């Protein structure tokens, strides 16, 4: 897919028109003397504009999503405030919200947010004295939500159909996060059956590097790291993009000592081959080996903990997870 979902939205013509119209609304209400409406429509236009500018900048869909979630909540607050303070004309703004929420949230949280929002809406509407309009509003609103639910239902079906066909992230070639749990659980079972080792690595840019880079550069570095991993890991290793800028790597048939060796090699390679803003980039790695009775979640958590520990101690290091927090091996500058 050449462009991600949110970019299709912000590049669409109607989105642009709605920004223009909200600007027009702001001016018109200013001339009509209703300061509140002018202010609120200004905020609306600003939020939409912010979405357009920020969204165009952000390449990663996940990051853009979090941005847009805030914008959506801002819009919700704006329109509810408007209705609460008696701008009944702003009721029509409430219609845009369910679709926005469905667009940027997963199905379940979206559903609860919309339920909450509808509740607040009804409470707010109860305070207003315009029964004639309220009947129409409630009827239309319920119908509207029903229709948007079915729109989302169709979308989810499509996603489910396409999910097995598109496992990897476009840019970094890393498998996406949803597959991690599933795959890792399978690997854990296999290594228990075969009695083989399994190690999980968590890898991230050092904070000292992150602070120097802009978000865009950071995204580019992630793409480079993804490529490097793609070229240097064994075929049966798999790696996942985790938390947007952390990589999680699953190494079957590898014990802790071997995985430390692999991690150090990767670390050196990254430092040598990848640079951003004319400076080389360093990474830190946390490693967790499989113990008897571990499940996939515990493994991931321990690897992430090890990473946090090593980052706390300094940059460009590798660390193996130990219960007593002490043990670091092969640390220090490489």
């Amino acid at each position, binding site marked *: 897919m050449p462009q991600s979902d949110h970019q299709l939205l912000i590049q669409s013509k109607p989105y642009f028109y709605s920004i223009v119209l909200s600007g*027009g609304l702001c001016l*018109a209400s200013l001339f009509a003397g209703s300061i509140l409406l002018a202010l609120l429509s200004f905020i609306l236009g600003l939020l939409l504009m912010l979405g357009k500018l920020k969204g165009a900048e952000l390449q990663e869909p996940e990051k853009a999503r979090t941005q847009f979630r805030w914008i959506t909540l801002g819009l919700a607050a704006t329109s509810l405030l408007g209705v609460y303070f008696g701008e009944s004309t702003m009721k029509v703004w409430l219609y845009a919200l369910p679709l926005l929420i469905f667009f940027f949230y997963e199905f379940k949280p979206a559903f609860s947010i919309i339920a909450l929002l509808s509740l607040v809406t009804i409470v707010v509407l109860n305070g207003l004295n315009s029964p*004639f309009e309220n009947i129409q509003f409630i009827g239309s609103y319920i119908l509207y939500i029903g229709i948007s639910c079915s729109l989302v239902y169709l979308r989810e079906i499509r996603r489910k159909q396409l999910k097995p066909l598109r496992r990897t992230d476009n840019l970094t070639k890393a498998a996406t996060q949803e597959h991690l749990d599933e795959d890792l659980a399978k690997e854990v079972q296999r290594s228990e059956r075969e009695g083989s080792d399994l190690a999980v690595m968590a890898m991230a840019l050092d904070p000292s590097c992150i602070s120097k880079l802009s978000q865009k550069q950071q995204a580019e570095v992630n793409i480079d790291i993804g490529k490097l991993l793609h070229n240097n890991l064994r075929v049966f290793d798999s790696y996942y993009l985790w938390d947007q800028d952390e990589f999680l790597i699953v190494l079957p048939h590898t014990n802790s000592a071997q995985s430390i060796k692999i991690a150090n090699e990767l670390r050196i390679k990254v430092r040598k081959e990848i640079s951003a803003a004319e400076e080389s980039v360093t990474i830190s790695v946390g490693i967790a080996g499989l113990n008897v009775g571990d499940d996939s979640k515990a493994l991931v958590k321990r690897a992430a903990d090890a990473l946090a520990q090593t980052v706390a101690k300094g940059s460009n290091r590798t660390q193996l997870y130990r219960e007593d927090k002490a043990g670091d091996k092969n640390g220090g500058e490489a």
Partner: protein
Amino acid sequence: MKTDDQLHSRVVATLYLLSGVLMLLLSIQNYRYGLYPLVYSASLIACMLIGLAAYARFATNPAQLNRAGVWVLSLCLVLITKDSFDYPIEVKHWAFPIGLLSFIALKHRAAMILTSVAAATLTLALIDAEGLVRALSFATSYTLLIALASTFAQLHQQRSRTLVELAIHEPMTRAYNYRYLEETLEKEICRADRTGKSLSLLALEIDYFPQVQDVHGTLVANDLLNQFSETLHSMIRAGDSEYYDSSRTFYLLLPCTPSEGVVVIAERIRRTIEESSWPVVDAITVSLGCTSYLTEARDCTVNSFINDANVALIEAQKNGHNRVCHHG
């Protein structure tokens, strides 16, 4: 594909029914509150939508349903616009669910035109009835709705297209796959029956392909297949189609081609393949089996037709490869 269409039309039918029922409830409520003119339009819209839902239950053709949907939804929006002169505050709310509904029920283009026109006319009507500020407020919200709904619809369309692409193409050669051959052939045979024009099928294999695989390895063999497929693709006419059955047989389906024509085309393909030079293996030859379906011979099924082509192909191979055979 069939089930997917069915699912979609079932969802649409349910939505029509839901909208109809809710509009009916609205009209009852309006009756209780004494907004009589709104009762008429609401119940009219409700009746139309419920009727459409019933029609959707029985309509077999999605295109028919689509056309009916366009009419009914645009009629609804006209009614809403008409009422918005007298009851601007109340009626404009109806436009939102109807607009969203059109993006699910109709084709993207139709929905886009319908809602844009509705947005423009309603805004004008509201300027007249309510003043500029309120009309602009409505317009802002409605365009935002159009933006969101059309993005949803477009994404849905994109995904559907990807799905179809993946389902009918053979991944290695990017020719169509065998399943799609069976599907198209069924249609084409039916069409040939109807139009009385003959239909031809070519089956072709690279000669001694297993040996190529053994000698040069699978990778080289796959590259060769890829190139071969591309060459074939460049040689067929518009309207012809190319299929690969994932083992080693290619099929070319040539509609409106009599048996003399197919032999000529087959011979041309044979000579072109023989005369071109190929990477690694240098030269290859092909054997081609072709068969034609003439409408006089009535007993032709998809399987027998493919089988005929294969029999001809085997005959060509038996007679010493690098030649064309016609069967049936």
